[in-house]
């Protein structure tokens, strides 16, 4: 039945690699959007590409999904060469872009039937496939509504369902939860985990550290088109150093002063939490942290709480890129 047999193992040493990329480059005029990225994603893994807006995440995804031709470098996806055999790559992947790639005028069911027919399901089989997917994604009741009337979460679900008409070897998800409310986000996370359990390799991009932390077995951090770190969430945190000092201030008004004191004593950039009253900084040793706390007390700054511990992924990101992440992230995901 399989003309292209994307799941068949090619007779090379890369058999276990879903994606293997070497030195991928994409330039737009003078901007090197992707500037020499290597990537190895084993089969069956959820792999996250983490980076701020404009880091080159989407450009990288577009190259790996054959939508954009690399200017230099090479890659194989499920054993097929990206440039030499794009059609075979397309038969082995599915791509869910940053914005729901659906026809707003059509109903959810029609969108899926359209894609099922393009994949080669005929007549009744295409409709059955569409209905099965709608049921699995909890969209049966909305099947005959036009997509323009769908909520953000429903669109995302339909969009991902549309990527599963034929089970892909690799599923590319470009910022799958951007713009979703927390409930819809949890929903999409569950869906992604379910797919991974079913054996689909997933490459996702995100600017949410919490998302990468929660979902991905491995994380590559990219910034300005380059990969600046890669590893498991635990490895990334360990590499940044474990001596992070977190302090919470009783008086928010003295935040600037406290940050200045910490920065002077510890000589590392200070990161502010999203909530505003907390500061985090790499202290290195407990002694250095003690001295810094003493400075705060000497300046008459009252602390409501303090702790030493592993950095959150947000702090890892901050330490690696020198900038706070742009996506919202929460502090309660600290280990």
């Amino acid at each position, binding site marked *: 039945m399989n003309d292209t047999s994307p799941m068949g193992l090619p007779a090379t040493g890369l058999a276990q690699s879903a994606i293997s990329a070497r030195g991928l480059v994409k330039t737009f005029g003078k901007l090197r959007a992707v500037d020499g990225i290597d990537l190895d994603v084993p089969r069956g893994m959820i792999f996250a590409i983490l980076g701020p807006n404009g880091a080159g995440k989407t450009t990288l995804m577009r190259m790996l999904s054959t939508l954009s031709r690399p200017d230099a470098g090479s890659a194989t996806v499920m054993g097929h060469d990206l440039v030499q055999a794009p*059609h075979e790559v*397309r*038969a082995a*992947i599915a791509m869910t872009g940053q914005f729901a790639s*659906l026809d707003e005028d059509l109903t959810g069911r029609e969108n899926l039937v359209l894609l099922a027919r*393009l994949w080669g399901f005929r007549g009744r089989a295409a409709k059955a496939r569409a209905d099965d997917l709608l049921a*699995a*994604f909890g969209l049966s009741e909305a099947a005959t509504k036009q997509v323009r009337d769908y909520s953000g979460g429903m669109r995302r679900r339909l969009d991902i369902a549309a990527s*599963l008409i034929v089970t892909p070897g690799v599923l590319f998800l470009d910022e799958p939860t951007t713009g979703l409310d927390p409930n819809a986000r949890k929903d999409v996370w569950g869906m992604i985990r379910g797919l991974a*359990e079913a054996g689909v390799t997933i490459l996702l991009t995100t600017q949410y550290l919490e998302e990468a932390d929660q979902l991905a077995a491995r994380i590559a951090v990219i910034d300005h088109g380059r990969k600046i770190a890669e590893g498991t969430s635990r490895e990334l945190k360990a590499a940044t150093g474990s001596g992070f000092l977190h302090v919470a201030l009783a008086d928010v008004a003295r935040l600037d002063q406290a940050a200045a004191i910490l920065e002077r004593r510890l000589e590392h950039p200070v990161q502010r939490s999203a909530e505003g009253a907390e500061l985090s900084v790499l202290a290195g040793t407990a002694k250095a942290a003690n001295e810094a706390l003493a400075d705060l007390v000497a300046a008459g700054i009252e602390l409501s709480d303090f702790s030493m511990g592993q950095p959150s992924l947000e702090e890892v990101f901050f330490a690696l890129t020198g900038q706070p992440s742009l996506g919202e992230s929460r502090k309660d995901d600290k280990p």
Partner: protein
Amino acid sequence: MIDTTSLQRLQRVARPRTPSALSNALVFGWRAVLKFKHVPEQLFDLVMTPIMFTLLFTFVFGGALAGSPGEYLQFFLPGILVQTVVFNAVYSGMGLSTDLDKGLFDRFRSLPIWSLSPFAGLMVGDILRHLIAASIILTIGLILGYRPEAGTLGVLAAFAMLITIGFGMGWVFIVLGLLIRTPTTVMTLGFTFLFPLVFASNIMVDPGTMPDWLRAFVEVNPVSLMTTALRGLMGGGATLSQVVLALIAPVALTAILAPTTLWLYLRR
């Protein structure tokens, strides 16, 4: 929300055989038909302007221009059909621009399908639009007293020519749609380019009373050539040279812009 068990069951469905390029193109054609079902308003957009024009020109200006509204309608109707088709070509460019903007084409491009099949679908939609709009205008013309002297055969030939014109013009807007991300800009640019072509033509009035410089333009304006041929086909007495002259623009546009479309699309 998501049912993991059924999700895993879904993974086990056998992959169907790879469909043919024709099958891909037909699926996109089906999409165009669905659009008519879900966005019937687009037909309203398509036919309202030409209907207004027909009524306005026939009853307000017709007497002054041709002696009587009836005589003017006889002159004007084939021209308004050309105008309708030429203006309607803007729609596929707008649709394409919307699809590109929404990322829909990214999904199509990441599928293992014949890469030009989405355009084949746009063309099917175009042809349907032209046929529907032209039929409505012709029906209104018939009600108002228009009589195609060349009979049914002449009308059929005229419709075939309208589709050819629409097909050729369609490429202009497909290229614009590929280049421009905002649908409304495609429309504005399209009309900026089309208005002089349509109004400085022989659709509304005989160019005999125009100043020399304008008449020189009107006589070589492709829209005039199309209108002349269509009048001949519907009213009888069309010559081969009229038909050939009318087809120059659509054929040239297709020959130049179809490869341009391919190049622009694959380059993205």
